[in-house]
Every structure is written in structure tokens, then in C-alpha cells.
């Protein structure tokens, strides 16, 4: 940590900063497309780009373990879960015009106002602060593992209990749903059986079967 602005050029960025800026622009653009596109599946796919860009930013910040965890969990499982959710809720494949609700202009005003305020405060606060990336790697797997299992064991175990609770919760939500579907399913085949013979008998006694030769005769008359 260096507080002297004189040792760093203000407008002479290093290579890491340029790479961070470029990847950050890609990430931000993908995030904006994610929240503004009208095609729901494309939003999930652009979310992959945004999350992968954030993983690259972690790598540039020398936090490699977090970067690979990000790739594994977010890009690997969360986006797949979101895509499954889009499929199971029968999301439209093409453009859906009502993807944005009516209050998008109010949302835009709120987002721009908060972005302006926060960018102003953050740049004003950290104007003369530099990260020293040249020392020992802060976020290597060894360092993260040592700290995690030396100092953070109790939160780690609590987190496993939380994941178990989430698992049980998801199963309970789905099972309640299955019971309802089962009770519906016991009613629906009954009604289907009632309506099925009607259709069959109707097709047997159908006056349409007598009409069909008449139609053919009419067609022949028309052709003749």
C-alpha cells in the first residue's frame, strides 16, 4: 500500500491496469446487455460473459482460487440452473416485447443516480490509493486454504449447515408441488377416460363419415 501519488504516474497506466480496464469494459458491456436484451436465453448467455470477465478480473487481482471457484460455481452451475429455470417456465425463445416492466424509466433514473453518487464518492475516496500487486500472491490456493481452515473453520461448518438447509428447502418446495400434481393427476385421467369414449363413439356414429363421400362428390363436381 502506497499513499504517495508521486511514485505512480497518474495517467501512465501499467499493463495490468490496461488489461483490467479492457476486461472491465467487456464485463460491463455484457452486464448491460444482460439486463436490457429482449431475448431471455441470450440474457443468460451474456451473463456467462459477464461472470467470466469477473473471473478474469480476480486473476488480475492475484486471487486465483476465487477466480476458479467463480468459474466452477457461477459459470458452471448457476447459469445452468438459470437456463433450466427458463426452460421449465416456458420462456419464449425469440424476442419478447414485455421483458421489461413499465417502471423501467424510474429504474433507469434510480440506477444512474446511484451510479453517479457512488462513482463520485469512490473516486474521491480512493484517488491516491494503489494496490501493490508485486509482493507475495495474496490469493493463491495455498494461502486461501490455510486461512480458511485455520481462522474460518466455524463459519465454514456453518455454511455447510446452510447448504444442507437450502437442499432440504428446495426438496420440500418441490415435494409439496409433486403432491399437488399427483392429486391433480388422479382427477385428470378420470376426466380423460370420460371424454375418450365420447370421442370414439362420436367418430363411429359421426355424420361426418357420411359427409366425407359427399365432400368428395362435391370436389369431383367442382373438378368436373
Amino acid at each position, binding site marked *: 500500500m502506497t499513499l504517495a501519488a508521486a511514485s505512480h504516474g497518474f495517467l501512465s497506466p501499467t499493463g495490468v*491496469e490496461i488489461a483490467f480496464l479492457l476486461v472491465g469494459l467487456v464485463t460491463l458491456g455484457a452486464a448491460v446487455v444482460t439486463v436490457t436484451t429482449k431475448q431471455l436465453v441470450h440474457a443468460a448467455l451474456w451473463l456467462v460473459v459477464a461472470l467470466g470477465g469477473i473471473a478474469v*478480473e480476480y486473476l488480475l487481482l492475484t486471487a486465483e482460487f476465487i477466480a476458479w*471457484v467463480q468459474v466452477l460455481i*457461477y459459470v458452471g452451475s448457476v447459469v445452468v440452473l438459470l437456463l433450466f429455470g427458463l426452460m421449465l417456465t416456458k420462456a419464449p425463445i425469440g424476442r419478447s416485447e414485455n421483458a421489461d416492466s413499465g417502471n423501467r424509466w424510474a429504474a433507469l433514473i434510480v*440506477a444512474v443516480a446511484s451510479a453517479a453518487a457512488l462513482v463520485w464518492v469512490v473516486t474521491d475516496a480512493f484517488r491516491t490509493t494503489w*494496490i501493490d500487486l508485486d509482493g507475495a500472491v495474496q490469493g493463491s490456493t495455498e*494461502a486461501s486454504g490455510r*486461512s480458511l481452515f485455520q481462522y474460518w473453520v466455524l463459519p465454514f461448518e456453518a455454511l455447510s449447515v446452510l447448504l444442507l438447509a437450502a437442499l432440504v428447502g428446495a426438496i420440500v418446495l418441490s415435494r409439496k*408441488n409433486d403432491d399437488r400434481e399427483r392429486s391433480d393427476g388422479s382427477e385428470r385421467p378420470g376426466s380423460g377416460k370420460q371424454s375418450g369414449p365420447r370421442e370414439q363413439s362420436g367418430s363411429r356414429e359421426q355424420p361426418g363419415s357420411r359427409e366425407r363421400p359427399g365432400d368428395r362428390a362435391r370436389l369431383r363436381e367442382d373438378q368436373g
Partner: protein
Amino acid sequence: MHLAYPAVLAVLLFCVGLYGVLARRNAILVLMSVELMLNAVNLNLVAFDVWLRDKLHAGQALTLFTIAVAAAEIGIGLAIVLLVYRNRGSSDVDRLRDLAERPDGSDPDDGSDPNDDTPGRPRPDHRAEAAA
């Protein structure tokens, strides 16, 4: 590296996620925007951890915990969204107005009286909406 780069990127990502949460109509897109906001917070945590050279690695440990909590949140959230979709036939957050306070006490959505929504009963009118 200047600390303002990751901080400003995190702020902008958070505000993009905020816009998405407020402006999107589909509940799954709202969940995606929540993920963007959580990732902005994670980026801040990692950047400040690297800046402060924390001996306990508190920022990165908290980032890992946030990622795990976000995974649990997305699982439960999607289960709830699927349940709502099966009961109501849509996952539009604008149309989920059962808990809205109405000044005249009437129900503008489906015309039935609000006393009809007792929790123990199955609700065939919504089921009919879902089938339609």
C-alpha cells in the same frame, strides 16, 4: 494498480444489477440481476483484501462464503419461481399482486373477493389461468 479501477467497476456492475432488478419483469431475469449485484460485491471484497494484505484473508474467505450463499439462494429462488409458475401460470413479478394493499379492498386481477384466498384451500381459478 490503482484501487479506483476495481472499485468503480464494482460500483457500475452493482448499478447495472440494480437497474435489472427494478426494470425486469420475468422473475428469473430478476434473479440474474441479483447475481450481478452479488458479483460486484465480491469484486469489491477481493480488491480490498488484496489492497490491505489481510493476514486473515478475511475478504477472500467472505467472498467464498458469499459465492456459496449465492448458490444456495439461486437454488431456493428458482424452486420458488417454479412453484409460483406452476400455481399461477406466469413468472411475471408485476402480476404477483396477492399481497398488494388495495384502497377499496377489491381484487382487480381476477374479480373474486379477497376472502376467497384462504391458505388451506386449493385455488382452482389460478389453476384454470395456468391451464389457459
